[in-house]
């Protein structure tokens, strides 16, 4: 971030009327993203926002950058094409739990494992909003919706666990209500080269209100938000009375006083092996009870777009730039007089 910002938030706003329901968490995320981009020294025309289908996927229409509102679930693939075709661009993917984990799950995991230079923001509201309230792949077991009147029997995905399982090189989680933390996470993802996934717990106040109450309610949030920070011991609670230990069984919450401060796990987001980050992601299966927020993993892996450019440079160095006249003769020729 620079001190003398070239842009203001309004440079990133469009004249399109924003059409989310009043009170929707999407508004705060949009504002956070626009404010964040205004702080960057990146040309506005170098940003591309790509979305699929869903409430959150209207996002590109509201960003005064290049943008594509595409096909349900396919944004990671389409964005992969953009980022691979031109690695100079900053490509953002806007997706939701239905778009990114249900119909588009395949593209998401492949974009992550290839380490395409994408900033993927997953708006997780644990519900299908645009189609008016059906359970989603992150809805909790037992959730009653119009398509699950007796309660959902689907076991949900934990998006962070899924991303870590795909060996994503950057994985983080935040919550829409916390604008500063959201911007901090956006900034870290932007600075990271390669594929990043930021899960944002986003409140759908119409079809799934208060889904994140454990993490937002004044009375419960301090004892449920586990802030994880690189290089710091993981403790939480109003007086940091709780902590996380990691052992052969995985990660679990303990009382610091009982476990001893020196046994509290010190978070290492840069650990090459994603196993401990995965263990941390299993501390909760969703936003229920103590739940980690922050950067789970942030490692350097060469990005796909640059690797591909390197291969082209290598091929040109070895064979010289392509010549059509040579190519069509490459299988042998003969002359007819």
């Amino acid at each position: 971030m620079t001190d003398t910002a070239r842009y203001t938030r309004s440079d990133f706003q469009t004249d399109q009327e924003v059409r989310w329901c009043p009170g929707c968490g999407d508004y705060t995320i949009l504002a956070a993203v626009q404010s964040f981009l205004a702080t960057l020294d990146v040309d506005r025309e170098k940003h591309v926002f790509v979305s699929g289908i869903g409430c959150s996927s209207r996002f590109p229409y509201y960003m005064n950058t290049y943008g594509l509102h595409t096909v349900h679930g396919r944004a990671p693939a389409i964005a992969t094409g953009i980022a691979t075709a031109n690695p100079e661009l900053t490509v953002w993917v806007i997706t939701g739990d239905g778009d990114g984990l249900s119909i588009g799950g395949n593209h998401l995991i492949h974009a992550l494992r290839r380490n395409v230079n994408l900033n993927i923001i997953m708006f997780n509201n644990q519900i299908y909003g645009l189609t008016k309230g059906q359970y989603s792949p992150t809805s909790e077991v037992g959730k009653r919706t119009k398509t699950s009147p007796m309660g959902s029997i689907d076991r949900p995905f934990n998006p962070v666990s899924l991303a870590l399982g795909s060996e994503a090189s950057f994985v983080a989680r935040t919550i829409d209500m916390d604008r500063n933390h959201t911007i901090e996470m956006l900034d870290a993802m932007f600075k990271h080269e390669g594929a990043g996934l930021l899960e944002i717990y986003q409140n759908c106040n119409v079809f799934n209100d208060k889904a994140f109450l454990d993490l937002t309610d004044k009375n419960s949030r301090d004892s449920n938000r586990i802030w994880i920070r690189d290089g710091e011991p993981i403790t939480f609670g109003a007086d940091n009375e709780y902590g996380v230990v990691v052992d052969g069984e995985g990660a679990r919450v303990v009382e610091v006083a009982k476990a001893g401060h020196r046994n509290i796990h010190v978070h290492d987001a840069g650990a090459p092996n994603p196993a401990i980050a995965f263990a941390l992601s299993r501390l909760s299966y969703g936003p229920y009870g103590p739940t980690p927020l922050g950067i789970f993993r942030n490692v350097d892996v060469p990005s796909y777009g640059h690797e591909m450019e390197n291969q082209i440079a290598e091929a040109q160095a070895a064979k010289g730039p392509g010549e059509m006249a040579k190519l069509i003769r490459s299988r042998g020729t003969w002359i007819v007089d």
Partner: protein
Amino acid sequence: MSDETLTDERPVPEQIDDVVIRFAGDSGDGMQLAGTQFTASSAMFGNDLATLPNFPAEIRAPQGTIGGVSSFQVHIADWDILTPGDSPDCLVAMNPAALKANLSDLVKGGLLIVNTDAFDERNLAKAGYDTNPLDNDALDAYQVLGAPMEMLTKEAVKDSGVKGRATLRSKNFFALGLMSWIYTRPIEPVLDWVDKKFGTDTPVGKANVMALKAGYNYGITTEAFHHTYTIQPAPLPAGEYTNVVGNTATAWGLIAGAEQAKLPLFIGSYPITPATTILEELARNKNFGVKSFQAEDEIAGIGTALGAAFAGRLAITTTSGPGLALKSETLSLAMIMELPMVVVDVQRGGPSTGLPTKVEQSDLLFAMYGRHGESPLPIISTSTPSDAFEVAFEAVRIAVTYMTPVILMTDGYIATSSEPWRLPDVSALPDISRPFASIQDGEEFLPYVRDPETLARPWAIPGQAGMEHRLGGLEKDATTGNVSYDPDNHESMLHTRARKIEALGKSLPEVEIFGEGSDLVVLGWGSTYGAIRTAVTRVQKTGRKVAHVHLRYINPLPSNLGAVLSSFDNVLVPEINLGQLSRIVRAEYLIDTHSFNRVLGQPMRAREIETKIYELLDQEVSS
């Protein structure tokens, strides 16, 4: 066998105009290689030729069974030929299954070369023979020449360094050597190839050379093989030639298109038979700046292509029928976003997995109509393997000029077969580039304001300042491209997108009529070109009047097509499907057609079309 040069004590060979030869054996017998090398020698020798490989769908079907038979047919001639031939004049059968699977195609009296070593009880049983056809009168209708190829190959390569069962791998070179003798082919091109591929000093290289020469010399020393043949070079137009396979020509045409459009090429594709080798050929040519992306699925193939198109690259995706179905949704998005892209559909037998390695003109109606909503796209097709170069180039031109996805249709036959191609002067290829959008200072960028002639919208790409815009699947306002739910705007946009295809039609060449008269015209598209042209020419030579019209452009159809077809009493439409072009023509022009449909997983045969032509002409006379 020592490696002194072969002394050609050849009796005077019989001169023939053309011959169709089929090499057939187990998938593991190397028949594709033998056929390809025989073809290369014939090309070097100056013959015209056309080839037809035929693979089993299973990579490793049980050895020795009918299901595992692989074959390669080549037609060589001293005249300008258009097809790989209806039926072989000569069949090389490396085992009983190959004999059983192919014998019914061999012309009566044809030459049958058999690897007698493979005709043991086990192989006979696997092929379903109760008795050995070599020992009874089953093959009396043919000229049978047997050779114990396995024994002779083993003996020939014993000093090569290759040991044990591996020695038998060279038996295809033995067969190739023997065939080179019988048909007076030079073996030097094969020796060069072996040298390049394996090196003549390696055990495998040595074994192949030894087996090749042993086969050739077996012909010299065995009296039964002393009736040999020769086919003079064909009077092809002067120039430099290469023998090109259809998928390679397609890939090269796409690269040439990208070069002349001044756009880096991006291909996003998922492997699928028989399209995969286009992706492979493009991946091999990264020094042209080609970015080849092997996607996680067909949808991501076209998805990445769409993204690359938005980013200002020449976007390609390649597929076959099942993959085209998966791409359909994104193709509609590319259509409404009006982004340039070439979708190559190498058609194969359908529906579903169908006959994945076989040819069929299966997807014409799908290409025309297989999208949701009103979603018209240009469709263009290739007629021969070398034609694919020009057609691929043309597909790129249309995509970039009109800002639209284009469907380029080839098929499994064009994909894998080859023919001599007179190399074009690539430096004379036209410039087909179209500048990216530009605006004056302070001017508002309007992504949907069109070129009055082509109706193409401007192409502004990320990185260009001042032209930031959003594209989406929602209906767009006719100028700003912003989301619009206005009903009149929607209807008008549907018409505008349809008119864009009409605008393209106005710029396309009219169809040419080959032949004269008004009784009968044969209308075709795609790879049936050679068979139809051959059949029509044969009939014309008898003095009867029949014409041929071939379509390269299928959407939009050439502007004079309706008038041309109406000027004939009968329109015959041969297709390797159940009448898809027929339906389109009937719907478009309200004229009747005679559909002639053969859907056997094989290219259509000239003879069948010829018979049908006579049937219609004779009806005309008697009515």
